């Protein structure tokens, strides 16, 4: 499984959504399950899967599915 596949899988599992919902429109609070609690679950799952520890500023900036890809590049996770 490459990084993009892993990234998508974590989103689907964290928010209980199908892969066809992973697009430019998927943002924080755009679906019920991506609320403040869901956000922390997503971050925790990403940190565990990619074995990283994200900075607070990056956690706050992680506001969408697409933005998340940019942020993970800082941690040498290319997609």
């Amino acid at each position: 499984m490459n990084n993009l596949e892993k990234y998508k899988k974590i989103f689907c599992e964290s928010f209980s959504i199908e892969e066809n919902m992973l697009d430019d429109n998927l943002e924080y609070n755009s679906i019920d399950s991506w609320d403040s609690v869901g956000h922390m679950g997503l971050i925790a799952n990403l940190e565990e899967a990619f074995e990283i520890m994200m900075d607070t500023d990056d956690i706050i900036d992680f506001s969408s599915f697409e933005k998340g890809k940019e942020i993970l590049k800082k941690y040498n996770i290319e997609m």
Partner: protein
Amino acid sequence: MKEEKTEGFSLDFMELQEYQQNRYPYLMIDYVDEVIPGKSAKGYKNLTLNEWFFPKHFPNEPNMPGALMLESLAQMLTIAITTLPGLKGKTTRFLSANLKFKKQILPGDKMVIETEVLSWKRGILKGKGIAYINGTIATEAEMVITIPDILDQYTPKK
């Protein structure tokens, strides 16, 4: 008023109210024997027939409602976090619980409560708690609780 501490210490009925906001009739712990901030809290609640819920639950068979047993565990567990520096008296919110009821709690019982923090990260507390009556497990639960003030510090701002 006690200073915020990091070693184990006890809290009486007045002191524990400084660390959490539940009040009568919803304060479900009486005494904290030992809290180690960020790690654990244990203490007890004594129950008499004067408890507000016994006359209604149930008139002919008074016993402590399961939801309130869970509340007792949650209140004790949150003490383990709200005694950390800067969190005194913060409002908490239940997110989920996985629990088992094994024994009724009756008037005259002393509910001994032991809780442990499994993780505390970015405003989300995961922990477990067990309530004993006379050394027998009455109920046990794994709980997820948040402090919204802390959680909100880590969420995207729109």
